[in-house]
């Protein structure tokens, strides 16, 4: 009898010890093809596992174009990972669907607060006053990267690019036979949305107003879109099927004078022969260039059986000494970002200033539907439609969503 009890106790003890050792976390991230980042990320994951020998992290990277579909299928199929990076614009939907866990208490307990991160990034994870993600990385659309040699030849100063009028004059002067003034693009995609948004923001406009109603048909937004419609004559042909990647290829071969990109573009330009520089967006009536926030948050899935371990992993990934090693955008942790920018980017002060001004896209659970209507509107604008009429139609569609 005694033996049996002892054996059972021993077995139970062993079992619980084994359980403590067998936490395996599934971490999904969108694949960073640009920078060979995955090596660094793996190094950081290894470091985490060394610090936490009882936790194993399995990283799955998924190419960006399919990431959203893949994640949605997994969640709907009841097979979500423990942790994933979520695009800022998905968080509200995932939170409302009940797919991701409330991290408010965890963040308070771990001492993570809005002050330590870029405010816009933090806000993108807040839904109904509860926090559903921790900002991982950020960037801002857009910086105007310019080709210094082409600007010199046309007698344009970089500072000219920072106002609506200045940019238009410069674009006209920079457009010559076989050379394009400005790299506007208008395919159906988020990069189109964020660039047009930033011109609307910089003109004092909004996508949705404080009450959540469409504001694209109001004067500042309409003016900004009319401005872009006119500016498009100095862009390369075929912008309705062109994206930021297309413009990069033209910028790199020296035929495009100005391209719109987030700071992420810098490493590519550094590796090129182009004599480049950048300014922070373009200011309209508001007097300030206001960019659009982009970036990714780390979220824990409601279905995860290992939420504590998952939170530990998130805490590690956004730590000041780690965050900069695991991102190729800009670390969302401000202290990490300062060090990262000083080391890896030209003009870190300017980048920080632009991040400080940037506005998020509408933080709504139905953002993706709003964005689709915006894409249709912006394509109409770039193909010469009457802006005010198109904006009114788009606003009817957006307001009908609610």
């Amino acid at each position, binding site marked *: 009898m005694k033996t049996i009890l002892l054996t059972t106790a021993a077995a139970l003890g062993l079992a619980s010890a084994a359980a403590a050792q067998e936490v395996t976390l599934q971490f999904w991230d969108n694949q960073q093809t640009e920078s060979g980042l995955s090596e660094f990320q793996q190094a950081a994951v290894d470091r985490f596992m060394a610090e936490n020998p009882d936790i194993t992290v399995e990283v799955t990277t998924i190419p960006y174009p399919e990431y959203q579909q893949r994640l*949605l299928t997994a969640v709907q199929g009841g097979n979500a990972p423990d942790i994933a990076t979520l695009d800022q614009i998905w968080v509200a*939907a995932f939170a409302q*669907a009940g797919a991701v866990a409330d991290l408010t208490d965890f963040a308070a307990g771990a001492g993570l607060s809005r002050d330590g991160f870029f405010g816009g990034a933090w806000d993108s994870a807040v839904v109904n006053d509860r926090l559903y993600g921790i900002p991982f990385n950020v960037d801002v659309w857009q910086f105007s990267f310019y080709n210094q040699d082409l600007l010199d030849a046309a007698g344009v100063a970089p500072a000219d690019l920072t106002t609506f009028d200045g940019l238009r004059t410069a674009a006209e002067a920079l457009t010559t036979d076989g050379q394009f003034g400005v790299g506007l693009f*208008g*395919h*159906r995609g988020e990069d189109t949305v964020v660039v047009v948004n930033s011109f609307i923001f910089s003109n004092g406009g909004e996508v949705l107003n404080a009450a959540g109603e469409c504001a694209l048909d109001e004067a500042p937004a309409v003016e900004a879109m009319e401005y872009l419609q006119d500016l498009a004559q100095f862009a390369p042909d*075929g912008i*309705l099927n062109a994206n930021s990647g297309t413009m990069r290829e033209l910028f790199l*071969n020296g035929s495009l004078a100005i391209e719109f990109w987030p700071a992420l573009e810098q490493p590519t330009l550094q590796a090129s022969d182009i004599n480049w520089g950048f300014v922070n967006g373009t200011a309209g009536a508001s007097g300030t260039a206001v960019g659009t926030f982009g970036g990714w948050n780390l979220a824990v899935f409601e279905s995860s059986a290992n939420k504590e371990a998952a939170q530990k992993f998130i805490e590690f990934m956004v730590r000041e000494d780690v965050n900069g090693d695991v991102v190729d955008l800009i670390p969302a942790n401000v202290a990490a970002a300062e060090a990262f920018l000083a080391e890896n980017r030209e003009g870190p002060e300017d980048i920080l200033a632009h991040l400080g001004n940037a506005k998020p896209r509408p933080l709504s659970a139905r953002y993706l*539907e709003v964005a689709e209507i915006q894409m249709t509107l912006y394509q109409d604008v770039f193909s010469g439609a009457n802006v005010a009429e198109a904006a009114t139609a788009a606003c009817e569609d957006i307001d009908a969503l609610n």
Partner: protein
Amino acid sequence: MSTQNRWLIWIFLAPTMVLMGVLLYYPMIGTVVESFYDTSFISPEPRFVGWAVYEKVWNSRQFPQVVWNSVVWTLGVVLLQNLLGFFVAMLLNQGLPAQGMLRALVLLPFVLPGVVTAILWRFMYDPQLGLINSLMIRLGLVEDNAAWLASSDTAMAAVIFVAVWKGFPFSMLIFLAALQSVDRSQLEAATLDGAGPWRRLIDVTLPAIKPVILVNVVLTLILTFNYFDIVWVMTRGGPQNATHIFPTRIFETGFGQFRFGEAAVYGVFSILILAVLAALYVIVQKTADGRRRTA
């Protein structure tokens, strides 16, 4: 088969019926049921709404455009792919010297994954950097950079062209097989009767391969209607919805915007329209047959 073999019929059919039942009909019936609910990712509690979502889709601005685009896309690809496939099959059945090599070469577009095909062609169509404009400018065919995929006027034609390039080898292969089975003696008899190549084609070859034409057309009809990769990667349905077809719309609505109920409705409509197209073709074919026979 005799009565005692009825068991055999069912044994032969069993695995197929189980697989199709579980992996095709069960999910599809689920989708049909879902189409009567207002359901999306963000409202996980489905609400029964009857035909409401159907009405919403039916009355939406995009719906007629998606139907029209789907019909143009499908008919365009099916017609061109089979015509080209047929003429290439004829060409590669003449005993010319390079025939063997070409028969293998023709299969090249066919083996290239659809996503890669689409990226390759999107790049070729690029107004500035692409090979097509480069060649056309060199040959003096165009002066300006034509933006093939970025104009609502040319985008559909441009994606159809790519689908034909990728798809004609399949039609060709089946036609080639059929051509080789055409009775040589009949062709020779027709030649002796003084029929030229054109008459031989109309009077002997075409009637002989008619069943194969039917198979090819219906098969490519179904494959094309539901073909997703090329349009999605090349244009994402743009510009201004000019190339949005049912599969891209279903994908965008369901996975891009998380509206499952609406995606389900598009799915049901897509099956109905495809079934109508296929049925129309078969009926036209049969009626034409009947008329020819009575004539």
